[in-house]
């Protein structure tokens, strides 16, 4: 019997491919955002609003990940944005290979921003690098303020936190200060935006964040 040391990351194949995608996105100067959230937190609605607000300013496309149906892609297309759908079947996450396979359907070099709407799930998508510049975690007040403590993985991966459905907060027991404290325990440096897609409160700061990051990416590609 011989023990052989290996020290190999099981997802190294995914990570290598993601690194390749990241280099390609940098060459083309497109900002790529990996959108993480639970089902029903308002990802698609946020994208619709974003697409309408930034139309004419930025060239946007979206990759929609879902277990089934083209519904999300249809909604995004109706907002005037080029969208492709990946149906994962029973799969709970997108991986770099799925992104690489669908990219030929999008003219990436002609884009400023590419949104990847991951499968609604706070656990599995956090494990898979897709070559994005930033992971944006969308949460809504109706999900409860205990999520940072229960799903630290997603919060740890996130580069920006967007708290949605702020207009419904008075009807829930969601405590924003407690939430903020729990987020800070997992990732103190994680910035948070508070928005409501219904009343459009706070959305301006989200649009500005995208415009700022797009400009930075165009001028000085990361990596």
């Amino acid at each position: 019997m011989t023990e052989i040391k290996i020290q190999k990351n099981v997802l190294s194949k995914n990570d290598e491919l993601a690194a390749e995608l990241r280099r390609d996105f940098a060459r083309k100067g497109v900002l790529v955002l990996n959108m993480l959230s639970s089902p029903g937190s308002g990802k698609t609605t946020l994208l619709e609003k974003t697409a309408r607000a930034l139309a004419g300013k930025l060239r946007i496309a979206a990759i929609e990940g879902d277990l089934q149906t083209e519904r999300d892609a249809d909604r995004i297309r109706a907002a005037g944005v080029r969208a492709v759908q990946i149906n994962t079947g029973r799969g709970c996450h997108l991986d770099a290979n799925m992104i690489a396979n669908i990219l030929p359907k999008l003219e990436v070099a002609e884009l400023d921003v590419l949104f990847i709407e991951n499968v609604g799930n706070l656990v599995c998508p956090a494990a898979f690098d897709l070559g994005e510049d930033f992971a944006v975690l969308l949460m809504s007040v109706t999900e409860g303020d205990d999520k940072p403590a229960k799903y630290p993985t997603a919060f740890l991966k996130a580069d920006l936190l967007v708290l949605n459905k702020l207009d419904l907060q008075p009807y829930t027991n969601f405590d924003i200060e407690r939430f903020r404290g729990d987020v800070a325990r997992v990732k103190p440096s994680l910035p948070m935006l508070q928005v409501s897609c219904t009343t459009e409160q706070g959305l301006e700061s989200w649009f500005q964040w995208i415009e700022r990051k797009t400009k930075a990416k165009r001028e000085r590609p990361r990596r």
Partner: protein
Amino acid sequence: MHEMSIAINIVRTLKDEMALHPGTTLKKVKLGIGEFSGVEVESLRFSLEFALAEENWQGVEFEMAKTPLGAKCKECGARFNADSSDFRCPKCGSDKFDIEAGQSVTIDSITVE
């Protein structure tokens, strides 16, 4: 439930590795399960059974150990294991750090005969 894709990736990696050691049989595999990999150990064991059967591999023992979240402070360079209740550098208190381990599943070693 991404344990199945993790299991398939493990078996794939093991196949590549075994190709480097012809004439031997795989007996044991040591896995490091990152505390923040989002992987459920029992569910992974269950998925591995199916992934192994697919390759007609039998009698492989899996040993799984938790890998804590290892971080390196961006301010003072100290390496530390982050506690899931407090993500700060114990040396200088900074909240800026790079994660170096504990977010993935690793194959640490294999034992062949």
